């Protein structure tokens, strides 16, 4: 059920180009959105907020960023349909609030003047007014307002300038008349140009005339910003800096996260110990400590990395570097059949493939979009990070890799991320020359101005990522920990080893006879060539619905065989347990460097996420593509793990 809009409330649509501070204005006006979801029938994000002004409730509908009201992508289609009132549950807006970048007025007025023709009252907010001032761009706002025939307000996020006036104007405009459209002198088309092309040419002529005397001359001198831009988009230096930024990001995560993780880990250790003392020995204590708390602990401990990763991504996006990265990477991506626009969806997939796949909607070309979606799950998402961190931390030797400042652990981690990228490139290359043969698709992308990222926006992105990981993934992990705990404990073994034996033997036998143990032993012949014992097979098997559960599973599996039940939980305890794991009936450790690498490579390449497959099905409108994704990734994962284990063993790692 979609909650209805407030009765008697006004609806205001927020329209603007991408990267003009639309979200910032949304937050300034309405705060946290009251409704976030998808428009019915299409998979474009719907964001609605509410505020009350002079006793009048106003619903603010955030439209997807668009350059034109002649739509080319699904996102742009949605913006047009909402303005026409074509969506059930979203009433036709009473007013359009257009956000126009004051530093890029001509291009932004293109959309603003199209909005004048919709037939609804319009208010224009000139965002980044403070940046325009600093650059010496003078705008005669009253004159601009007179010529456009609608109210125009300056908006500056740092000072909050304009927010109050925007509220006033939106309220009064909503009950007023729609403005008169701009006069366009559309020349007849002798060469058979489509109306949209004739309209665009005529519109820019009209905008140039409209801006005469309203704005000063466009700057021509070289500014510090130009010099930074020249360096960062330089073919050689720009690429080196890009590689440095990416490597630095991963190194920083390795340096900054451990103290925070230790804090969370020791807190959870204490909590587990406390609970273990309070509850009597038995099934309930085992469920709470080994099932629930172990699951919570293995989730919470990775929040610092996820928050940090998103902090960096939000910083890069906020300062305008992400578009430059797409610019730098385009030639490389074209080489494998993708485009620079695939870069942002693919980079987002490093956090989670689901938003990444959804971000692929910004790619107009269906072919490029499908290719991007198919390889996006190969990017190492944040749910893989815990596996990498645990196994790198425990089994990769503690020394430098070539250069003193780069630990081998960090190099292996970077290598795993690189593996996903390289395999994705290979898969895209093959697909673009087989299934997706066709002409090269167009690439027209704005490079937004350099600006300081807004701290509020950056921290909000980071908080939201950590929160959704805890909320969505975390709930799933804890629930599955409990299920796995049950699968690992039941059915109880009918026959125990003769003579009782050691406690560990009894527990080992119990696990062997449980549901999980039986499934693990069933797949043992399949995972033996990867260097895995049946317990790792169990953990991998249990991770197919969601790979997040693997640590919890390993915790439960190796905890059951562990004599020391008083030992506290958390990543470090899990590390100790994995290090002491032995092949059944021998002293040979299960986890060696080749085995750890084989597990990590398997997780790097495998499609262990039901949600991702569901989203692929939804986005592509076909169940063939998730099936293809699942099949090719699982096959590659097994092959990759096999090669790494065999090569590693042969090389004597």
């Amino acid at each position, binding site marked *: 059920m979609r909650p209805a809009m407030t009765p008697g409330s006004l609806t205001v649509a927020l329209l603007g180009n991408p990267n003009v501070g639309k979200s910032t204005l949304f937050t300034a006006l309405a705060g946290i959105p009251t409704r976030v979801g998808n428009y019915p029938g299409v998979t474009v994000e719907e964001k609605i907020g509410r505020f009350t002004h002079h006793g009048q409730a106003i619903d603010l509908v955030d439209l997807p960023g668009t*350059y*034109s009201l*002649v739509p*080319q992508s699904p996102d742009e289609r949605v913006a047009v349909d909402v303005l026409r009132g074509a969506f059930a549950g979203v009433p036709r807006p009473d007013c359009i609030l257009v956000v126009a970048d004051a*530093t*890029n*007025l*001509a*291009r932004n007025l*293109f959309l603003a003047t199209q909005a004048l023709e919709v037939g609804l009252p319009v208010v224009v907010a000139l965002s980044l007014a403070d940046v325009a001032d600093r650059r010496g761009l003078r705008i005669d706002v009253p004159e601009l307002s007179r010529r456009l025939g609608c109210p125009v307000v300056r908006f500056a996020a740092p000072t909050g300038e304009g927010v109050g006036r925007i509220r006033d104007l939106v309220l009064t405009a909503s009950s007023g008349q729609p403005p008169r459209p701009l006069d366009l002198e559309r020349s007849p088309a002798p060469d*058979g*140009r*489509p109306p*949209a*092309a004739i309209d*665009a*040419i005529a519109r*820019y*002529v009209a905008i140039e005339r409209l801006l005469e005397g309203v704005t000063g001359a*466009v*700057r021509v001198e070289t500014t510090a910003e130009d010099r930074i*831009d*020249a360096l960062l*988009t*330089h*073919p*050689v230096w*720009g*690429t080196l800096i890009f590689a440095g930024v990416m490597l630095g990001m991963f190194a920083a995560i390795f340096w900054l996260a451990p103290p925070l993780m230790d804090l969370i880990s020791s807190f959870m250790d204490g909590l587990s110990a406390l609970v273990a003392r309070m509850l009597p020995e038995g099934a309930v204590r085992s469920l709470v400590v080994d099932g629930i708390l172990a699951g919570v602990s293995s989730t919470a401990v990775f929040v610092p990395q996820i928050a940090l990763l998103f902090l960096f991504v939000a910083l890069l996006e906020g300062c305008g570097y992400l*578009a430059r990265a*797409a*610019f*730098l990477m*385009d*030639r*490389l991506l*074209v080489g494998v059949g993708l485009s*620079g626009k695939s870069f942002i969806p693919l980079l987002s997939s490093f956090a989670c493939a689901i938003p990444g796949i959804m971000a692929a909607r910004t790619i*107009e070309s269906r072919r490029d979009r499908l290719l991007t979606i198919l390889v996006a799950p190969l990017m190492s998402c944040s749910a893989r990070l815990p596996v990498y961190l645990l196994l790198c931390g425990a089994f990769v030797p503690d020394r430098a890799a070539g250069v003193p400042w780069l630990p081998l652990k960090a190099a292996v981690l970077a290598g795993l991320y690189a593996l996903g990228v390289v395999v994705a490139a290979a898969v895209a290359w093959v697909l673009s020359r087989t299934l997706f043969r066709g002409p*090269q698709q*167009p*690439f*027209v*992308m*704005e*490079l*937004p*101005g350099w600006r300081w990222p807004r701290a509020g926006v950056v921290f909000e992105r980071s908080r939201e990522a950590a929160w959704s990981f805890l909320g969505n993934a975390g709930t799933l992990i804890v629930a599955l920990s409990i299920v796995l705990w049950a699968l690992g404990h039941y059915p109880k073994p009918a026959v125990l080893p003769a003579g009782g034996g050691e406690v560990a033997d009894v527990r080992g036998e119990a696990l062997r006879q449980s549901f999980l143990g039986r499934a693990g032993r069933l797949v043992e012949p399949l995972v033996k060539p990867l260097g895995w014992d049946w317990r790792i097979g169990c953990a991998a098997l249990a991770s197919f619905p969601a790979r997040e559960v693997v640590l919890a599973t390993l915790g439960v599996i190796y905890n059951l065989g562990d004599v020391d039940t008083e030992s506290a939980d958390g990543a470090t305890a899990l590390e100790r347990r994995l290090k002491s794991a032995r092949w059944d009936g021998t002293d040979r450790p299960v986890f060696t460097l080749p085995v750890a690498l084989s597990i990590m490579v398997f997780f790097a390449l495998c499609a262990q996420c039901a949600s991702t497959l569901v989203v692929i099905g939804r986005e592509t409108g076909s169940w063939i593509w998730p099936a293809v994704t699942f099949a090719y990734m699982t096959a590659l994962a097994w092959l990759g793990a096999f090669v790494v284990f065999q090569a590693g063993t042969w090389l004597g790692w």
Partner: protein
Amino acid sequence: MTASLDDVMVGSTVRVQDVSGGDAVAIRLLEMGVTPGVEVRLVGKAPFGDPLELELRGYRLSIRRQEAARVAIGDR
């Protein structure tokens, strides 16, 4: 034979004469402000010479050589 935007030297400023064709690429280029008469400066090129970074109407736009080839240019 008129010159097109893909064979301009980095740093030079040219005036757009026309964008050929009436497909989605042509419409998007026009909508982004690459219209007849506008001045465009080639700011730089990405590694391997593609795509191009342009400055026009006070902002930066990136397009591939392939699209730039469809933009006919004249002297300033």
